[in-house]
């Protein structure tokens, strides 16, 4: 009885004024807590990677002191990699393969998306869905049949095989993003251009590509990530050192039997991760705008 009375008295003293404000405060606290957990989970590995890359082999193997801080930071690992011919080759291989892959994928994706979203031919809906369905087939299932195909083409252990194969991974999703983005462009815009005297290639070049730039950037970043970070295909189809790309090269070159050159491996990872991180940092806003626009209109 007493308890009930006390509770009633308390609620009478504190009327629920500003409960919206209080609710907001709690929501914010919850949000920040969730974000902190998220940040810790996702930033600890890169942090540890950077720290280890700055340690000498001696410091890593000594296992003394705080492992999270480099006691005597050194750039030796980076210097070793940057001056290493083999590592330079891996990096350059990754760069030109990914560059070509992005150009090829985006050319195909933009042309496909434009025709699928705007030309309105029979079956374009079915093809649009089909394009997306191909994206759902896991690459790890495809690499065995592809091995035979690549073998018949005589491209085993030839870096060009990646230029051929990476677009098959990137094009479906890039096309999907671009279809979404192109569909969000009002129909009147191409009609106005048609009346102004443009033909379809001109509409694509002068209207659609400039207007859909955020979507194109988003798709380009995706295509870049696909090529730059790929591991399975290069591992399966390329076996000699001069043909390897960065992801596979790091593993092949820096892990010898059961000897792990941790400092150098981590430095290689930092160098390997740098291009995507730099690209994301500068183009993040476009990436998000492009993806969300595709999401709502697709």
């Amino acid at each position: 009885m007493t308890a009930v009375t006390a509770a009633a008295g308390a609620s009478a003293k504190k009327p629920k004024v500003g409960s919206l404000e209080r609710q907001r405060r709690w929501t914010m606290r919850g949000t920040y807590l969730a974000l902190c957990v998220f940040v810790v989970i996702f930033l600890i590995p890169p942090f540890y990677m950077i720290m280890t890359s700055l340690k000498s082999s001696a410091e890593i193997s000594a296992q003394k002191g705080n492992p999270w801080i480099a006691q005597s930071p050194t750039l030796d690992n980076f210097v070793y990699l940057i001056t290493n011919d083999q590592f330079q080759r891996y990096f350059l291989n990754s760069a030109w393969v990914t560059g070509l892959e992005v150009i090829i994928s985006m050319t195909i994706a933009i042309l496909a998306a434009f025709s699928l979203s705007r030309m309105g031919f029979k079956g374009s809906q079915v093809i649009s869905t089909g394009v997306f369905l191909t994206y759902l087939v896991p690459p790890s299932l495809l690499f065995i049949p592809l091995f035979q195909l690549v073998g018949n083409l005589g491209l085993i252990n030839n870096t060009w095989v990646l230029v051929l194969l990476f677009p098959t991974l990137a094009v479906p999703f890039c096309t999907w993003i671009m279809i979404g983005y192109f569909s969000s462009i009002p129909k009147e815009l191409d009609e106005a251009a048609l009346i102004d005297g443009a033909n379809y290639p001109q509409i694509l070049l002068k209207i659609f590509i400039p207007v859909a730039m955020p979507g194109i950037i988003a798709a380009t970043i995706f295509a870049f990530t696909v090529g730059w970070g790929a591991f399975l295909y290069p591992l399966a189809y390329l076996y000699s050192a001069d043909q390897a790309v960065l992801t596979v090269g790091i593993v092949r070159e820096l892990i010898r039997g059961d000897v792990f050159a941790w400092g150098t491996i981590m430095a290689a990872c930092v160098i390997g991760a740098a291009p995507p991180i730099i690209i994301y940092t500068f183009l993040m806003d476009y990436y998000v705008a492009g993806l969300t626009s595709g999401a709502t209109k697709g």
Partner: protein
Amino acid sequence: MSEVSLRKIVKSFEGDVQAVKGIDLEINDHEFVVLVGPSGCGKSTTLRMIAGLEEVTSGEIWIGGDVVNDVPPRDRDIAMVFQNYALYPHMSVFENMAFGLKLRKFPKDEIRRRVDDAARMLDIETLLDRKPKALSGGQRQRVAMGRAIVRNPKVFLFDEPLSNLDAKLRVQMRTEIKKVHQMVPTTTVYVTHDQVEAMTLADRVVVMNHGVIEQVGAPQELYHNPQTRFVAGFIGSPAMNFMNCRLEEAAGALRVRLSDTLAFPVPASRTARYRSYAGMSNLVLGLRPEHITESRPNVVPDQHDFDVKIDVVEPMGMETLVYFTIEGVTVSGRVNPNAGATAQQPMKLRADLGNMHLIDDSTGKVL
């Protein structure tokens, strides 16, 4: 020479939906024609077929003496202004207006001259460097018009260009469009669902409904001599009153009876015209609100007083609208604000039967 001629134009969409059901229309050189009708009446489809944005299912479209059915939009020498402006968002106002000329490989100084001329005419000279997103709705619509004007085409097409603007701006832009047409008297086809726009802008109004043309005529002609109940009801605001009636003949004179207690003599000038319909059922009396006014002491031929109980009063400032009921149908009248109209009170009104319309309800034709 830029007449537009539509001959037996039919447009069917997939699933056998006929949006346009065989219309014929001749639009003269320099004429300003407005297609008006409710949504779904086929007016926009007709305009898009003239533009070449929709294919014609059957029939012929002529522009300037040539059949253009199979001519792509860019070779039809037309310019179109869209409802949502359709400005290229990544280009400046100047680039938007110059785009069509650039594609047609006009020399640079000619492009500059034409854009400057159009900008001056539309009062957007100071906006040429801005992007469309930095413009207000009215300014965007001017740019869209500018883009059409610089091309100096055979025909201007307007697809509900004022629908996205607020009421005040709409009136202002309406005048602007009329002014532009006076300066550049290009043949114009203008689509709207707003009958006031149609009446104020058009040399001739084409009223469409359900994919057919109901009536073509000058605004005043449509207003005073509608040929169908649809046109009578669509043109004019507030809309014409329609009351079920009977035509009675007694001693050589005709009376139009609205209820057991209310009947008006038909004007002598119309007796001969209506005599054959005496005794027919399915008749409707059409009378515009402005022809139902407050009673006045003077006697005017063909105007008759009657008593009603007012349901609702709507003061508009320069006039007052009154609503009352006859046989279950709400009827509106326009009275002087000082006539003392009061809701739920009896009032003596005057009907001007000289402006009556008698409609056969079964065919929808005005008799």
